[in-house]
């Protein structure tokens, strides 16, 4: 027998030093800011975007790689060891992954803005190397874990999608594939609905019940939804590359059914949850769940030949800005104080409350600006109106500043709480 408290000090499983997840969160905040700034710069091109280098593509990758993947990396490096009880044997691969990935995204974006192929290649190689290292770290963790089957299966499939999208992306940069719209659409679909979509669904299965204080949906139900979604995605991408539009619609229909089932199950979790006041973050998360199936339905309408020219671009916009950006920022504002509370806690000390680590004002400013930005840019794309995109991007920029303020404030408060806990007890 031993005294509790000493047990914690001798714990085998680990929390990372906060500098590791937070470097990803700060980088995500900066790329969020850059993404909106590039949208502002690209305002005239955004409503007529059809792919190819330029400020619009740069803005898109600032958000997809710079915010979505960046946040997923920071959060998963810290959350996987905690929830699975497996520890990282060493920290250098996670650190090296950050040194390669974070600047790599910036170099790739610079390449897209300048149209300079060598710069794109340098950025692509650097971030791919960083991602490979990150994946090797997570694979080693998950290979030893036996719990959290739903999260693990989603993650394995997300990794398959990641490999496919990186290979297609590099092949496009190095001109190994003739870049037609079908290949670019496959790359985008795998990135958004494959890699990010599966990660979002997998993380939701653990994080939403945790935040709402409810039991997770049944494992069988979640895995069935995942199987239907993944099969639909394979059909959709395969048929798209083969130029079979009718089959693309069947695949997208399967994804839509799975998405609705996922959203309904998450809604049931929240309704059953013991925590009723879930805060601003869940306004964002719930809004993103409305746009998730809507983006697929819009894609189906666009492929079906609905007589509305920007339909496909709007579907992509809904997926990137309406669903994923809203979802990731909603989850991030829950995760950061949660991880900060764990980092600020030490054996024998009372852990700080989440409300002590998170200030509400920046989140309110961000949420308001984010939704205004989403609506304005959407209108700008729908009616080809540059000023609406500019107005939306300006609101987005203010919101991104507020979110960066929130990130810095959580980090500052965590350090204050940690230093309080380190004081000798009298």
């Amino acid at each position, binding site marked *: *027998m*031993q*005294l*509790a*408290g000493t*047990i*914690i*000090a*001798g*714990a*085998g*499983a*680990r*929390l*990372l*030093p906060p500098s590791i997840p937070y470097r990803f969160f700060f980088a995500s905040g900066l790329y969020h800011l850059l993404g909106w700034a590039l949208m502002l710069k690209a305002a005239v091109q955004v409503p007529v975007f059809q792919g190819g280098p330029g400020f619009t593509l740069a803005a898109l990758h600032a958000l997809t790689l710079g915010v979505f993947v960046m946040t997923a990396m920071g959060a998963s490096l810290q959350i996987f*060891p*905690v*929830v699975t*009880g497996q*520890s*990282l044997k*060493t*920290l*250098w691969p996670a650190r090296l992954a950050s040194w390669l990935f974070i600047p790599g995204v910036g170099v790739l974006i610079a390449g897209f803005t300048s149209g300079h192929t060598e710069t794109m290649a340098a950025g692509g190689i650097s971030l791919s190397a960083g991602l490979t290292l990150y994946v090797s770290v997570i694979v080693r963790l998950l290979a030893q874990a*036996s*719990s*959290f089957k739903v999260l693990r299966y989603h993650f394995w499939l997300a990794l398959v999608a990641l490999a496919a999208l990186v290979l297609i992306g590099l092949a496009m940069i190095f001109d190994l594939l003739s870049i037609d719209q079908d290949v670019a659409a496959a790359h985008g679909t795998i990135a958004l609905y494959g890699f990010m979509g599966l990660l979002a669904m997998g993380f939701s299965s*653990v994080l939403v*019940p*945790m935040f709402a*204080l*409810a*039991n*997770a949906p049944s494992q069988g139900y979640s895995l069935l939804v995942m199987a239907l979604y993944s099969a639909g995605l394979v059909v959709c991408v395969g048929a798209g590359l083969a130029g079979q539009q009718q089959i693309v619609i069947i695949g997208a229909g399967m994804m839509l059914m799975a998405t609705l089932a996922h959203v309904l199950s998450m809604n049931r979790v929240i309704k059953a949850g*013991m925590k009723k006041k879930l805060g601003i973050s869940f306004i964002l998360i719930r809004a993103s769940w409305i746009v998730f199936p809507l983006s697929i339905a819009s894609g189906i309408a666009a492929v079906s030949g609905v007589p509305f020219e920007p339909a496909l671009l709007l579907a992509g916009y809904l997926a990137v800005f309406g669903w994923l950006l809203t979802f990731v920022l909603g989850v991030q504002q829950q995760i950061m104080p*949660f991880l900060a*509370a*764990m*980092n600020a*806690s*030490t*054996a024998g000390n*009372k*852990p700080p*409350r*989440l409300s002590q680590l998170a200030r509400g004002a920046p989140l309110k400013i961000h949420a308001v600006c984010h939704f205004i930005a989403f609506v304005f840019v959407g209108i700008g794309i729908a009616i080809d109106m540059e000023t609406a995109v500019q107005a939306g991007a300006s609101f987005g920029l203010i919101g991104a500043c507020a979110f960066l303020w929130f990130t810095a404030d959580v980090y500052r408060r965590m350090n204050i709480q940690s230093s309080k806990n380190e004081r000798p007890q009298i």
Partner: protein
Amino acid sequence: MTQNGKESVPEICPVLPSTDGTRPARTGPSISIHGTETHIDVRGLESPEPLVSILTLLENPDVTDTVIVIHDRDPLLLYPELEDRDWDWSQLPAPMGQLHLRLTRTPRAEG
């Protein structure tokens, strides 16, 4: 963090090591009453089931004023919820790989 020139990982994780390196898979909490105490064993449950099980038990009007929690993690998210529900907690001696908590209902101030 560097020790003797070598990188090491800080030892402050809320997940406790089990003695044999494995975690038994469980499907629900084990609850038993011992005199004036209710014992709830949530070891081996996937997060957030331990937290939900403990809070569900505490919200049961028939629960005893003292509850002993047998856990395999330090449940950091539980403590603020206990404060909100007027329960106090203290740690008890426990075997390696376990964390035992004594939860006691805090008398509400009258008036």
